[in-house]
């Protein structure tokens, strides 16, 4: 045996280990899609694909914001509560029309984002605590605003947002696609994107290099909260009612899962926008596959847990190298 012969398989394993966390999600997505196309009845019907896409759209939108926050080595636990807050604000201003109501919902998100960002950037709180406080308080405020009641939405413009199609796809799906492009552009091609990755890679170095670290952090949390508010408005438009106690419940988990499965490391310094979208699609497909094959939701949850662990474990191996 020569050294080269011994080295080669090890090198391949190393390459696989680097490669897997980044592209594994796409492979898994294609494999699972192929599996369903062959073995699941009525999977390829347009109605089914449509339903899956409509269901995944708000998760994608929230997960995009989460990916950007995680890119700065942060986390935003408040996204589900921001969705609830947006959902609670919409019916209050719906009397003035759909546009002002949506605008006010976004303002609500903006305020939460500013508070999150301020606590993280200026007070120096750990992101997990700052956004935890907003998670608890945000849903509380949403419940207070809505009086704890479910409100039906009858505004035709808002209902149209949730149920019309544009070129064969629902508006919410187009919105998710558009926001993916915008965030992708933001992260890859703008100064803000470069800065947020630099802050996530090494905050102290970014600070010493003269980057406006605090402003970047505030911008990141505002972005995440705004995207969550959009998702909240979409949820209201789709189910044509606003229930602050239900909208966005546990969305923070779905969003974090999508980001992590998509190959964005929790240690920051890297944002995988397309990976995040693929992660959200994969988790949606996993659940759909299990439901269609009559596996119980309880099993689906346990499988999700294992997928998260495997994804993080694979990413950890790559970092260790």
């Amino acid at each position, binding site marked *: 045996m020569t050294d080269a012969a011994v080295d080669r398989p090890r090198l391949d394993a190393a390459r696989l280990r680097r490669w897997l966390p980044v592209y594994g999600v796409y492979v898994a997505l294609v494999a699972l899609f192929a599996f369903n196309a062959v073995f699941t009845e009525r999977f390829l019907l347009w109605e089914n694909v449509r339903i899956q896409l409509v269901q995944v759209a708000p998760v994608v939108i929230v997960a995009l914001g989460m990916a950007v926050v995680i890119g700065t080595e942060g986390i935003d636990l408040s996204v589900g509560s921001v969705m609830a807050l947006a959902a609670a604000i919409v019916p209050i201003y719906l009397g003035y029309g759909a546009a002002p109501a949506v605008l006010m919902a976004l303002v609500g998100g903006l305020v939460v984002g500013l508070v999150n960002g301020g606590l993280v950037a200026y007070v120096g709180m750990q992101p997990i*605590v700052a956004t935890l406080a907003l998670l608890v308080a945000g849903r509380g405020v949403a419940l207070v605003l809505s009086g704890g009641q479910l409100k039906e939405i009858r505004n035709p413009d808002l209902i149209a947002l949730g149920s019309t199609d544009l070129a064969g796809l629902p508006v919410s799906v187009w919105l998710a696609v558009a926001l993916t492009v915008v965030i992708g552009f933001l992260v890859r091609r703008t100064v803000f994107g470069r800065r947020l990755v630099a802050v996530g890679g090494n905050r102290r170095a970014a600070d010493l290099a003269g980057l406006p670290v605090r402003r970047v952090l505030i911008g990141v949390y505002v972005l995440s909260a705004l995207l969550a508010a959009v998702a909240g408005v979409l949820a209201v438009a789709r189910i044509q009612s606003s229930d602050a106690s239900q909208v966005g419940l546990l969305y923070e988990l779905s969003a974090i899962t999508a980001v992590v499965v998509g190959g964005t490391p929790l240690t920051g310094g890297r944002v995988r926008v397309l990976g995040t979208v693929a992660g959200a699609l994969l988790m949606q497909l996993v659940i759909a596959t299990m439901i269609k094959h009559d596996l119980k939701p309880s099993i689906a949850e*346990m499988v999700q847990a294992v997928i998260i*662990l495997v994804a993080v474990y694979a990413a950890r191996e790559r970092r260790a190298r």
Partner: protein
Amino acid sequence: MTALDKRQVPAGEPARRAERRSDRVADLGQRHGALAVLVIVSLVGLAAFPGFRTPENAATLLVNAAPLALIALGMTFVILTGGIDLSVGSVFVLGGVLAAWASQYGFWAALAAPLAVCGLIGLVNGVLVARTGMPPFIVTLASLLGARGLMRAISGEGSATYLVAAPAFKMFGNGAALGVKWPVWVAAALFLIGTVVLHRMRFGQSVYAIGGSADAARLMGVPVAATRVCVYAISGLLAGLAGALNAARLGSGVTVLGIGLELDAIAAVVIGGTLLTGGAGALSGTAAGVLLLGVIQNLINQVGDLPAAYQQVISGSFLAVVVVAQTWLARLRRVASG
């Protein structure tokens, strides 16, 4: 703060006395801030609400706080090592369902089943955190999902509610000794034991050392991995016990409770002055934090026409205020010590 910290300040050095005074003020604020606020809020409650003054109300307040107290106790250990356990809420529910289900086989089965399963989940958390180097936050997030899935699997997708069959087990949740209900005794006893473990035993000192600096602790020969595994196992065990006690009190394994309980527990620990970065804090603070959350909730109920959602608003804002104060106190201390 701890024995370790006291050693770092040499005693009787005149030049440093003034610095140490501001240091001590910051320290006091951090350690007993929650207790002070608890006393103030309770006094206001006593003065303003006749309904708050009754012994029955005090008993209800304490027994309601007992499960959260147990969970926060375990969470304090985890947070002191610099970790976090997000799975306790669903482990708590799982424990309750398991206890109610196992109560058909008698009192001891009803106690052993949740402790075994929940302890095992904690153990798995601990091993994954300690041995693979994955962040505690993501490991316990996964086990949050896993435990909830398991709970649904044994309760017919959350539709079946097991009633507690063993009368002795029901007594465990509702019976009283010396006028205080059993869950409160259990919580109080475990807090005492926890305090002794943290401050008087090697394991407790290891917990503080790891939270201060895991690398330094390892170099000093502290069994870092084993200690980490233990704290997560303790957290799982206590969450399971809390679930069992709650099931015994309610007489059934309720499947819909416990969402967000991990956040209440973290809030109680942080309000109690334990730093999320690990290494500093005490169980007395956690107890004050738990009671404070309970008193706030109770007072909101006393006001009556206030929606229960205000409790979330208040505890969320409170959490933010406390952590802001902590950060400033820490900064003050850094300035004081040069």
